[in-house]
């Protein structure tokens, strides 16, 4: 109950995440969202835990990767308020990633 589940993009997925779709190259945002993020998110939601996503340690996170990963959660049917309550972000190296992710989720919710 209200534990923090940790997910590191660099350690649990790739240090070199890339494109939006798997058809465009490896380590895509869609692959990260479906194979890594959603299972952890489900676990966090079921147990009423927080999911802390560590965005440090990669060679760079592109806007398409971040949009597909997190904006894509909204398109997959997750509720924005629920996500904002559950997800926490750590982005010490590049401070704006965190703001971008929240913006992408809000934009995806507005477009629904």
């Amino acid at each position, binding site marked *: 109950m209200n534990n923090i589940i940790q997910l590191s993009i660099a350690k649990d997925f790739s240090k070199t995440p890339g494109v939006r779709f798997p058809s*465009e*190259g490896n380590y895509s945002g869609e692959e990260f969202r479906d194979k890594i993020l959603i299972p952890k998110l489900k676990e966090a939601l079921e147990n009423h835990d927080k999911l802390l996503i560590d965005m440090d340690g990669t*060679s*760079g*996170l*592109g806007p398409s990767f971040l949009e597909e990963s997190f*904006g894509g959660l909204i398109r997959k049917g997750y509720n924005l308020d629920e996500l904002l309550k559950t997800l926490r972000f750590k982005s010490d190296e590049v401070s704006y990633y965190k703001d971008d992710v929240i913006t992408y989720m809000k934009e995806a919710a507005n477009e629904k």
Partner: protein
Amino acid sequence: MKNKCICLLISFAFGLAVGCLPKFIWDFHVSVYSLITFIITIGVTIYVAKIIQRSTQYKVSQNQMLVSKVNDIDNLVKNIHSLIQSDGFSYKQLIASFQILYLNAEWIINGINEIHPQLNNRESSSLLKEIRKIQKISTYTPPGKESSEISISDDKVSYTQSKRDEVVKVLSKLRASLFNLEVDIYRQ
């Protein structure tokens, strides 16, 4: 002829001055107080001149260092510019180049703002926003459909000519902003 006239006039003036010399009274009685005041005045003058010289030199070398760091950012922008010139460049390499550019720019701009806080709201503060904007223009593909301007396959990117022109344009604008920042630093 002109030079000869000038020499003649100078010789005349010198002769006149020497001729007047006996009229001056030489007084070798100097009070201790005047002597001390004189020495202190000379000492303080030399000290102040040295401090001013040192602080000016420090400021100049500090500004030179900052400008060379801004040049480093410019070189990173140039690297991105050459990377995108031909089709088939690596998407991941572009993303990594932008991260390196952003982190370097952030580090250098923090340094500039610390040394010249008055520059804070001018060129320097808008640079980071500009870099983020350029990264998005150069790498963002829309959700749910393929981009009509950026095609990516096996991590290799191809731009349409209009997209390449757009990216080159914003990179050039960024380089102009970096140049303006250098000018602003030299003005401090």
